[in-house]
């Protein structure tokens, strides 16, 4: 298992270096069109060939990975903060506040996530700029994905509120905010961190699904999801198997996250 974890760390480190160095590894950029070379096969200039409008597939893959793998952790951070707030408030106050928060959590957990995402996404304009579409997509993921984490935080906060050291702190006259800052937050840090790490692969997959359905990041900006959408042309996919590389990269990166997550969960 140690060797597999080492491989997973190596894959994630390589991915991080690749997306950071995208500018040097793919100087053509994701937007530049080589109009004389549409749908070209792999060559020395275009490692993965070009797409329908002559854009370099390798450059689009690198920049797509950058968009998905940088913004998914940001969305995960946002969702963890939200989960910490709702779960923390529910666990700290208890009683009716907890019941109301749990009802809200139940509501979010009752609707299959993708249904909720496409419903809210449909309310927003579909013809927005690529930059706005990236923000909207990942903000929605962060805004709608907090419920499961909030339930975990709520249980953790509730258990802490019943613990002896919190009772002692309260008896010593610790005020609400001081109690939260000195006793609750440090002890919930592990659970919050675990929820943050768990959310990252979930959000990458959700963005990939949204992108594949045409409801994610808008053209010409690439993301792992929008690159998957190109695979829907199944007729040309059989003679051009290199086009499956975005899918392979996605599976390898998420699998690496999953392998490391088990260790992280145990630690927290």
């Amino acid at each position, binding site marked *: 298992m140690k060797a597999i974890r080492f491989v997973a760390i190596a894959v994630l480190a390589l991915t991080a270096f690749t997306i950071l160095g995208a500018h040097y590894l793919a100087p053509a950029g994701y937007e530049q069109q080589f109009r004389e070379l549409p749908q070209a096969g792999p060559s020395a200039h275009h490692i993965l060939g070009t797409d329908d409008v002559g854009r370099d597939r390798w450059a689009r893959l690198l920049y797509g990975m950058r968009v998905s793998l940088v913004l998914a952790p940001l969305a995960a951070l946002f969702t963890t903060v939200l989960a910490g707030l709702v779960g923390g408030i529910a666990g700290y106050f208890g009683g009716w506040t907890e019941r109301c928060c749990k*009802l809200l959590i139940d509501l979010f957990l*009752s609707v299959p996530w*993708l249904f909720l995402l*496409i419903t*809210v996404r449909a309310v927003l304009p579909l013809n927005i700029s690529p930059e706005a579409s990236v923000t909207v997509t990942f903000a929605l993921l962060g805004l709608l994905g907090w419920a499961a984490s909030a339930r975990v935080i709520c249980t953790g906060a509730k258990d802490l509120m019943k613990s002896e050291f919190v009772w002692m702190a309260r008896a010593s006259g610790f005020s609400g905010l001081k109690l939260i800052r000195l006793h609750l937050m440090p002890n919930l840090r592990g659970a919050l961190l675990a929820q943050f790490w768990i959310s990252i692969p979930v959000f990458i997959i959700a963005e990939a*699904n949204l992108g594949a359905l045409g409801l994610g990041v808008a053209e010409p900006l690439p993301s792992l999801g929008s690159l998957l959408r190109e*695979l829907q042309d199944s007729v040309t996919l*059989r003679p051009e198997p290199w086009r499956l590389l975005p899918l392979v990269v*996605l599976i390898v990166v998420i699998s690496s996250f*999953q392998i490391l997550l088990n260790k992280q969960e145990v630690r927290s």
Partner: protein
Amino acid sequence: MLRFWGWALLRLAAVMIMASFAGAMLMRIAPGFSSDDQELNSGLSAQSIQAVRKAHLADANIPHFYAQYIGSLMKGDLGTSRSLNQPVKQLLRERLPVTLENLGFALGVGWLLGLALAIAAQTWNIRALTFLANGLSGTFISTPSAALALVFLLLRWPPAFAAALLVFPKIYRYTQNLLQQSSEMPHVLTARAKGAGPWRVLAWHVAPIALPQLIALVGVSISIGIGVLLPIEVVSDVAGIGQLAWQAAQSRDLPLLVNLTMVVTFVTVCSTLISDAVQRGVTRSAA
């Protein structure tokens, strides 16, 4: 039991009220809500157009709009799809059986595969088998449902099987953890020390502890199954409610989309409640 059902129904009502309110709000704030195609109809008189506008102005009042929406829902009227120009009820009647059939297949195969591999890995404790099962579940848990549907489309395999493979890792991982925890309990260790065989230990000592939690997972797996079926139906062109929801999202048909989400929420909450009730029953009879 009566108290449990009372609370369960109250919870169902509260969730549905909140979901319907959120749905009504979404429809109300969606761009283009106050406009109507009829306003462009040159055959209508100025008075008729004024009447259409007046009707929309009445809808601008959110409490009034919500009351009207709930009133229609109570009568079983789910409204009319703007893009398909058909009653939502009729669309559901046509599409729901397709989704339920695929969901049944996906859950059946996913559960069978997940349980079989988890039990085999736990009982025989063969390293290669555990490695294979973990590898398979790790691969499918890392694959977006739309991408797996594409691969299945290329291979001309049934799309419901793709859904089954996406449900399987969740069942496998949960069951394996549960069996692992249960098999480390003192009475199980004692049974083993007294010479009970692996199947006897599983059937008489591990299964009774794990069963209630597995029953609770049935309700959750229905929600997971519905979620993975949406992209699969879109990519594989299966005429189920997932594809209908996607079509509604593409054409911004909010009445259809919100009502579909409400129906899915109702099915999910009911299935969770039923599995919770069965879980309680099993726990009580075991005690």
